[in-house]
């Protein structure tokens, strides 16, 4: 970030939510960069930005689309970069129909399931035919209630294509080139539309456009940074795609100071997707196999990497087999498909919200809650609490007795009598956890940098690290199952579970790191090792116990130097292919701490960045097609003709000796299929995608839809909301009417939820700490003076906020930082709600939870809830207590005519169905 000339922070509040990372923005600014903050609220980020541009929450694609339009119309795009490095020149099949043709829908929509068949979005095949669809049956998985999650089947590589024998027109004149389709798609995203939908006037838009375009090109780079202000929408993935399209047009990807920075939240939230806690991913963004679709490893690999596709996903077989070898050791062999059948299969989206609803339906017996506080922190937290009461047992591992551990005695539902403690049958176990200073391990931060931290002190009492807890839990379960002949138990019994142990009998974190890194498999000397299912119960429990200290593990050989060493023949094991190299040369590379990262702009001697210690992804794009830096000022990696290899300030993200002018034989797949000007080595055609022929479930181009609840009409299309959004019409999950529907005036205001610097998400790590609690002691709502006047709200007094789901109260903060926006010919008021507080008895500070107000509407790509835009009413005074609170919400819903079907129509105009 420090290398950037212009930083646009949009969909995030970096100074408040990422204050430590913000040092790099501060440094860029000190070096002369312009910082622009685009956000509904004037925040602490706006306070130190050069400019704050208020925007209506949820309208970001209109603004980004208008910038794309501006860049194309005024010929401000980076020609050489765009033609060589993106799919601008690629020709799309003539079956494709755009949203302008279908009034807000793309071709291939099925209104019954709410899904698209993306066949008509594909590239036209060179020679006239269309690209064969490798994973043809995808999208046909079994599902519940019309839920769908085709995106779940795709890892980070996005969708595979057959080899990229695409038709290209580098003059970009062909009407079906991606470039021409792009131009047409965004032609109605104009400054006037920005004024109408975002509330940003033409002058401000022009200034923004001028700043970013003059800060892009050979000599300068612009960067975008976003966070949950973009992800937490029903079109969240497309918000980010829109920025990607713009940045590719401006040539700001793969270059120092460019890119789109996903500002991740907690210390290792990036790590928690790399080695995922997500239901739909395996480590390294390999997709989780789907029942009926991935019956064999070969089926699975066909979907992960089309046989002819270009680039490094072509080696997915090596990544997957090595992962299975890491999981199942000597039990995994070519004969048994490397134990591929031991992996669980998805039968639908099993995200946190679907699980919660399943609980309410009585379908979930037990629940582990680790590192989260859903009774306060998840959308529709009221439903979350009611769902917990349907469990047989609940395990909460946390630092404090958070609300998710105590809801059965002190939740608002217990206070109102809706739940009675004596009637709740859920058995709740609270297990105290060790803090980050009480355990060693790595954090992976937003730059993909792994930083090792050492243990500072022992955890008090019974507090245990996650690693120790799960290791010992696994040991105990395997003890219980030892000797079992049940097929179901085989995966657990055949799993490798023999990390080196320390003097307390706890696993050594570095032993896990080596497994993640990958190692050469040493063939077992005798038979089978000591982990087979047939052994006696006593012995299973002893495993590893005798080898205190860091003794070499059975079958574990040399640490691999990187993922290029991975093989599909069972000779290597690797817990997460993108992390391979973090333990190269048997050394913990994540623990490197040379001050300032040593010499050089990449700061390469601090920590370790995946993949392969590259600090900037796709950095081949930092050089021109001939391999020369675009400019002296922005040079990063380049081709050294004399040495015959790529070199520079960073580890080249490209085959080291691939000449920039190399062109492969047509039809070559995998890494060998990459041309010397294919910088996007993880994309199946080696190009940056202005148009996504596959991989996104809601369209190949980002398109503006209103939020699931919005008092504003979509001015671009008849289609009001994202037609693929995931709907959950339930009595406890009602939606407010949107613009154009009866009753919209009952919930006239938009509210948006967010964090404050002083607190940690749902408060588990801050509301129990006096030094943090005193800094923001009470729940409040932020409103503009105009809204305060309209509703009679008094600064520092109380307000009651009502949504179709719940009612809460908050202290009122009247501030000019909230500004009503002139949108669609009228004033739109936005209410700001931090979501840190919860009702309970244990925390130092408590308060109503903003998440009670939110409903569950999800982005179909990501299963992420829309928590940045929803509808509410605000009134002065405190909320009613007890049953009266529920009656107030019911009264609002009666007045608005809300039923479970409200807001849950996929198509705004049912007439559209035939056309889709």
């Amino acid at each position: 970030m420090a290398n950037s000339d212009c930083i646009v922070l949009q969909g995030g509040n970096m100074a408040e939510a990422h204050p430590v990372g913000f040092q790099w923005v501060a440094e860029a600014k000190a070096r002369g960069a312009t910082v622009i903050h685009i956000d509904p609220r004037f925040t602490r980020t706006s306070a130190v930005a050069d400019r704050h541009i208020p925007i209506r929450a949820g309208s970001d694609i209109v603004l980004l689309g208008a910038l794309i339009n501006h860049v194309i119309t005024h010929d401000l795009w980076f020609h050489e970069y765009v033609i060589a490095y993106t799919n601008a020149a690629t020709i799309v099949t003539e079956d494709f129909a755009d949203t302008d043709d279908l009034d807000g829908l793309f071709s291939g929509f099925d209104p019954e399931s709410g899904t698209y068949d993306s066949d008509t979005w594909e590239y036209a095949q060179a020679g006239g035919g269309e690209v064969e669809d490798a994973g043809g049956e995808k999208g046909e998985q079994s599902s519940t209630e019309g839920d769908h999650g085709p995106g779940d089947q795709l890892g980070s590589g996005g969708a595979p294509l057959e080899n990229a024998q695409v038709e290209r027109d580098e003059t970009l004149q062909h009407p079906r080139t991606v470039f021409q389709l792009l131009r047409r798609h965004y032609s109605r995203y104009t400054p006037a539309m920005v004024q109408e939908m975002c509330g940003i006037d033409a002058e401000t838009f022009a200034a923004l456009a001028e700043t970013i375009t003059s800060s892009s090109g050979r000599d300068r780079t612009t960067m975008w940074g976003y966070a949950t202000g973009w992800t937490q929408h029903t079109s969240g993935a497309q918000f980010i795609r829109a920025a990607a399209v713009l940045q590719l047009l401006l040539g700001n990807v793969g270059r120092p100071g460019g890119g789109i920075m996903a500002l991740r939240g907690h210390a290792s939230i990036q790590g928690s997707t790399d080695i995922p806690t997500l239901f739909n991913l395996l480590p390294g963004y390999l997709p989780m196999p789907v029942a009926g679709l991935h019956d064999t490893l070969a089926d699975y690999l066909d979907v992960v990497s089309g046989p002819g596709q270009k680039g490094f996903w072509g080696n997915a077989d090596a990544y997957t087999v090595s992962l299975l070898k890491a999981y199942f050791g000597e039990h995994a062999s070519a004969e048994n498909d490397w134990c591929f059948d031991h992996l669980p299969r998805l039968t639908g989206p099993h995200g946190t919200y679907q699980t919660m609803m399943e609980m309410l339906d009585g379908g979930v017996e037990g629940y582990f809650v680790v590192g989260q506080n859903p009774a306060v922190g998840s959308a529709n937290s009221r439903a979350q609490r009611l769902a917990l009461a349907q469990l047989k047992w609940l395990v909460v591992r946390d630092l404090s007795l958070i609300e998710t551990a105590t809801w059965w005695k002190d939740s608002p539902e217990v206070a109102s009598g809706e739940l009675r403690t004596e009637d709740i049958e859920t058995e709740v176990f609270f297990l105290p956890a060790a803090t980050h200073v009480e355990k060693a391990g790595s954090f992976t931060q937003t730059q993909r940098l792994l930083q090792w931290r050492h243990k500072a002190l022992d955890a008090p009492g019974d507090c245990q690290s996650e690693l120790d807890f799960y290791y010992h839990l696994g040991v105990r379960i395997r003890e219980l199952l030892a000797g079992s002949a049940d097929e179901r138990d085989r995966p657990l019994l055949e799993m490798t579970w023999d990390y080196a142990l320390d003097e307390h009998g706890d696993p050594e974190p570095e032993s896990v790191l080596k497994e993640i890194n990958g190692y050469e498999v040493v063939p077992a000397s005798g038979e089978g090792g000591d982990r087979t299912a047939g052994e006696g119960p006593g012995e299973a429990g002893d495993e590893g116990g005798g080898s205190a200290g860091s003794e070499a593990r059975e079958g574990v050989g040399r640490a691999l130097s990187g993922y290029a060493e991975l093989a599909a023949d069972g000779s290597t094991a690797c817990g997460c292919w993108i992390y391979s190299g973090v333990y190269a040369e048997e050394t913990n590379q994540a623990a490197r701490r040379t001050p300032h990262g040593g010499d050089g702009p990449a700061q390469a001697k601090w920590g370790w960045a995946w993949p392969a210690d590259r600090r900037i992804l796709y950095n081949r794009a930092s050089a021109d097609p001939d391999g020369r830096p675009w400019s002296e000022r922005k040079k990063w990696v380049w081709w050294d003709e004399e040495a015959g290899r790529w070199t520079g300030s960073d580890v080249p993200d490209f085959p080291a000796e691939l000449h920039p002018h190399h062109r492969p034989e047509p039809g070559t797949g995998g890494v060998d299929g990459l041309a010397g000007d294919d910088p996007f080595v993880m994309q199946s055609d080696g190009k940056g995608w202005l148009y996504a022929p596959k991989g996104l479930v809601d369209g190949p181009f980002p398109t503006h839809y209103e939020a699931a609840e919005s008092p504003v009409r979509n001015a671009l299309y008849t289609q009001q909301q994202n037609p693929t959004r995931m709907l959950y019409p339930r009595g406890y999950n009602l939606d407010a009417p949107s613009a154009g529907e009866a009753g919209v005036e009952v919930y006239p205001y938009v509210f948006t939820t967010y964090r404050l610097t002083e607190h940690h998400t749902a408060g588990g790590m801050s509301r129990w700490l006096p030094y943090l609690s005193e800094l923001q002691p009470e729940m409040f709502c932020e409103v503009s003076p105009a809204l305060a006047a309209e509703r009679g709200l008094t600064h520092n007094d109380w307000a009651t906020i009502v949504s179709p789901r719940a009612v809460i109260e908050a202290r009122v903060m009247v501030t000019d930082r909230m500004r009503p926006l002139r949108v669609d010919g009228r004033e739109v008021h936005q209410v700001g709600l931090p979501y840190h507080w919860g009702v309970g008895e244990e925390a130092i500070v408590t308060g109503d939870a903003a998440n009670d107000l939110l409903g569950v509407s999800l982005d179909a790509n990501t299963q992420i809830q829309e928590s940045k835009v929803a509808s509410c009413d605000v009134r002065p005074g405190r909320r009613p207590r007890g049953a009266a609170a529920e009656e107030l919400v019911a009264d609002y819903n009666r007045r608005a005519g809300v039923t479970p079907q409200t807001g849950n129509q996929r198509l705004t105009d049912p007439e559209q169905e035939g056309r889709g």
Partner: protein
Amino acid sequence: MTSSPQRHSTGDLLGHQLHGPTDPIRDVGWDGTHARKGFFTDTSICIGCKACEVACKEWNRNPRDGDLEITGWSYDNSQSLGASTWRHVAFVEQDREAIEAARESGRRLVSLGMPTVRDGGAGSEGGGATPSPDTPLPPTSPPDTPEFRWLMASDVCKHCTHAGCLDVCPTGALMRTEFGTVVVQDDVCNGCGTCVAGCPFGVVERRSDGTAAPTTRRGERKGEQPAVPKEGVAQKCTLCYDRLRDEETPACAKTCPTTSIRFGDHDELVTSARARVAELHAKGMTEARLYGANELDGVGGTGSVFLLLDEPEVYGLPPDPRVPTADLGVMFDRAGIAALGMIGAAVAAFVGARR
């Protein structure tokens, strides 16, 4: 602060200079091994994260303050420096009118020539180290006066050149350290509170039980904490004296993510602070000015120097801080004259009576 202080003859009392420029370290007899240490708090890059407040309390083991109620003062819920809050971040929301007024007042400071001295010695100064007639004045109408701004500023003990608290302390509990900072010795302080009145900035406070009684607004207990240490004695920032002795950076500066709080040798900090003001002025931000860098002010300049973007009062800082003992010499002289006069009058009375 100049490195070779000129002594003001009028300020000397019993060899102890009471106001004006001086070297506070040698003044009290330290050998000058250490340079004077201080802070430069550049409020123009503060992001209001309050990490300084938290790091300070963590390191110094200060108790939680206050009654855990929202104040309504923007995002400021700790309100002021006190016995347990030794760093405090102020939040000030301003509209266009206030911004223009701040720019105008800054511009006046600049055009007065630098450094400026208002009547009686101003706390703020306009900028650059060497006033030069060649320095072009910043443009009169900067292009982008924003509609709104949100000022954030981390306040701290000033560690004055002439420290009122130290000068009035009857027990010697307050001392001048070898780093030129002012520190309370807890075990000497008898809690008389004279220093509280002696501080022109309102920084020093006696610690009560460290927290008000739990709030009664909701009738609930809130945030019980263990017994408060050092109850009844005067407390304030030590500039992390313990850390300085171990050659460590004070906790607040160490934790500040944007280097808004910088720690170092006082003279170097003042030089870079002046350069920063000049840089902001060059961008048209005439509202930038230094606070505490003027050694001719009422406290002889401060060890903690601030870059402000408005008048000091806006941040809750006194515009013309003045050490209460500044006039001690004059008062002493006048008291002497008065005494002589009274003696003279008495003598005259006796002499007259004999007549």
